[in-house]
């Protein structure tokens, strides 16, 4: 424990935090964790709560797995990972039920589905199993926030265009409606989430040519 006297926020560690926001975003580049990302994005509030829940679950389980990485035999690692994640998710679920009951009702099964959210498993496999707790913690926070950012962007557009509100507040004034503006009901329906994410991917890749796929 002497060789790496790295400062806590060395450039390598900062990169762990910022990389997932753009170049290796879990949703648009690594294609992990799409499942829950799309269904909860009708309104910003549930999307935000789910993003926070994922940040907590991911940071803690990354640290736990990283601490256990030398003691867990590789053959049973998947079960160990699932148990750690499931235990964290149960905690988060109980807290949500206690303090934010209406949001927890809206999220319905999607809190439970954090367990099978592939980013968490994916990052545990790819990063936490071979790194020290502190970088693993940063990696967890970084990836979960990269996920949360996309969630909130999608939710923002769907809520704004679909119901004319942001975080439940009316932002499109009444007078615009009197002119004949209508909320786009299609945005509330599930398929539009996919198309919005498709558009985000398009914009991101148009700006960042090295992400373009060949086929």
């Amino acid at each position, binding site marked *: 424990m002497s060789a790496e006297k790295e400062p806590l926020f060395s450039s390598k560690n900062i990169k762990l935090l910022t990389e997932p926001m753009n170049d290796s975003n879990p949703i*648009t580049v690594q*294609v*992990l*964790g*799409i*499942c*829950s*990302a*799309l*269904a909860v994005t009708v309104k910003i509030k549930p999307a935000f709560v789910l993003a926070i829940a994922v940040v907590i679950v991911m940071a803690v389980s990354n640290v736990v797995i990283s601490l256990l990485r030398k003691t867990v035999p590789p053959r049973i690692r*998947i*079960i160990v990972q*699932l*148990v750690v994640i*499931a*235990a964290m*998710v*149960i905690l988060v*679920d*109980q807290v949500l039920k206690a303090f934010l009951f209406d949001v927890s009702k809206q999220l*319905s*099964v999607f809190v*439970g*589905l954090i*367990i*099978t*959210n*592939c980013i968490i*498993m994916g990052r545990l496999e790819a990063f936490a199993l071979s790194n020290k707790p502190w970088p693993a913690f940063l990696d967890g926070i970084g990836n979960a926030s990269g996920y949360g950012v996309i969630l909130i962007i999608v939710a923002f557009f769907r809520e704004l265009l679909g119901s004319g509100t942001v975080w439940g507040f009316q932002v499109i004034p009444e007078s615009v409606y009197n002119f004949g503006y209508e909320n786009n009901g299609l945005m509330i*329906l*599930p*398929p*539009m*989430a*996919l*198309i919005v*994410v*498709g*558009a985000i*991917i*398009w*914009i*991101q*890749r*148009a700006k960042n*040519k090295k*992400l*373009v*796929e*060949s*086929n």
Partner: protein
Amino acid sequence: MMENLVNIFVKSVFIDNMIFAYFLGMCSYLAVSKTVKTSTGLGIAVIFVLGFTVPIDYLIHNFLLREGALVWLSPKFADVDLSFLSFIIFIAVIASMVQLVEMIIEKFSPTLYNSLGIFLPLIAVNCAILGGSLFMQERDYNNIAEATAFGLGSGLGWFLAIVGIAAIREKIRYSNIPDPLKGLGITFIITGLMGIAFMGFMGIKL
């Protein structure tokens, strides 16, 4: 009775389609849908796993976990509620079922086993499977036959969706798509359009 089962089955295939209505199982749906052959294999595996796990989890939910479920052991347990354990138990059931399916496929179809590769173990973390069990719990089906119909129906719906998108992706390889949209982007948009098409089933009253 029979009519009711058919209703639940059709509803879970078309109206409450796992992919188009709830986006469950998207990760493997996007990753494995490059060719029709592999996606057919994965789709069948999903039908199989869902068809088994949903009824098993139904029994576990109703005879072990829900409030008052332990009465058959002793009336003392009437107000024991273990449902907070359901996540961990469901995932354990799923993980062991997946292991079983993996062994069966390896035995009977080594080519399929090789082409599915890493994605078989990933069924364990396929949200469609856990989602199936959680929806079963939330919707409170009356008996095990209904739960089975729901499980098989959701599996079939997932199967249809992945085979459909794989067929489209095989064709689309020859079309001229803007570079940044190639691959992932266009797949998302096609899935969205397929979802809109599937919404046409929503008007059906069952």
